[in-house]
């Protein structure tokens, strides 16, 4: 077999495609995430009935929903490798950075898919009006990237612990909190028909970049013994 050296981009892509194919074969994470999102949304909607919620409360509910859905499924990228014993092979063949960013891309993709499915249902069930669609989509994308960036590195940390799933949420929340608070306040502005400031968007983007740089630096210590 010829030895081929791939560029970093190709290696990241290979890891992502591998996860994508595994997911496509079992369809476990997608279906679990989707059902989880559906029951949470339905329970919110049933609980409030026909009452109209204030905009800031709706925004908070949307992000709490997205956060807990992410917590239900995103730890799988590393936990699955650990449980099936494939993590060792990945440690030998995949370089740390490629694994981190490949899994990060996969998680972002999963979360964006989930968001695309959730948002129409959310609008229908809670009867809300979105005024600035393009900014709303931008906020959703940035928020999803933030959740994926924080949870990918914590997923790698919890893979070796006992009681992985409860710990995953506990560990991700404090890291994500600055991003979480600004997503909620920006979404609330959009729902109230106020155009968010450029600085709100910039803060979210900057936090994502910082989170990715920090996880990229720290991940090598985690990945190699």
């Amino acid at each position, binding site marked *: 077999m010829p030895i081929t050296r791939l560029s970093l981009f190709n290696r990241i892509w290979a890891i992502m495609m591998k996860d994508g194919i595994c997911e496509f074969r079992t369809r476990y994470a997608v279906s679990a995430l989707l059902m989880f999102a559906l029951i949470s949304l339905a329970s919110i909607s049933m609980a409030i009935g026909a009452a109209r919620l204030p905009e800031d409360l709706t925004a908070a509910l949307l992000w709490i929903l997205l956060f807990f859905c992410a917590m239900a499924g995103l730890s799988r990228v590393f936990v699955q490798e650990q449980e099936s014993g494939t993590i060792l092979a990945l440690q030998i063949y995949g370089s740390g950075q490629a694994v981190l960013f490949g899994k990060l891309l996969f998680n972002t993709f999963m979360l964006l898919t989930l968001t695309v499915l959730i948002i129409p249902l959310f609008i229908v069930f809670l009867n809300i009006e979105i005024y600035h669609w393009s900014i709303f989509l931008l906020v959703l994308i940035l928020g999803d990237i933030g959740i994926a960036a924080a949870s990918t590195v914590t997923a790698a940390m*919890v893979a070796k612990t006992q009681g992985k799933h409860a*710990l995953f949420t506990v560990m991700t929340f*404090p890291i994500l909190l600055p991003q979480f608070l600004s997503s909620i306040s920006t979404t609330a502005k959009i729902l109230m028909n106020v155009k968010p400031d450029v600085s709100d968007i910039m803060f979210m983007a900057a936090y994502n970049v910082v989170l990715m740089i920090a996880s990229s630096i720290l991940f090598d210590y985690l990945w190699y013994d």
Partner: protein
Amino acid sequence: MRIVLSLWIMSVIYAVLYIVPPAEGLGNLVRIAFFHIPVAWVSVLAFLLSAGWSVQYLRTRDIQYDWKSSAAASLGLLFCLLATISGAIFAKLTWGAYWNWDPRQTSIFILLLIYGAYLVLRSSIQEEKDRAKVSAVYALLSFLTVPFLVFIIPRFYFSLHPEPVINSAGKLEMDMIMIYVLLAAVGACTALFWQCFSYMVQNKQKSF
């Protein structure tokens, strides 16, 4: 050493109760501050030290640094809890509610969350080297959020918390006697922290 420390703490308590004059506007409630400020200072110091030793551990992989980091973090959690409780009591007596998500309360609450998550993480990994590695990475990653919380949260809400002792103008707005007692209290608290810390680390070294 221990006798000196206990004498020191007792004299600080005496000074706080009998020597410090009641403050304008706050009256006798100001005495809580002589407990609250040193404890809060120590919890931040412990957090810094814990992050510093985490860096040292990742660079050298010497297990001693991991013991230091975890001892500092568990003492930090204790002091952070004391600061939160004394702050909440002060808030009830002056603002009328124990808890109202004031920016300072939010940031100390997040500090509690981070410490709590760090210790739960430690307790859930059996293998010593894995535990040291993973918890060092987590301590550093969570340390990253602190500047963001300091800059972002005050933008959203306005704070009732009194200005820090040394405010932005750089001048001290306190009685001279209060400053001396406060400095002595901060010193006593830091020394107490250091005493407990070295006791914990020595215990670890003995059992190793």
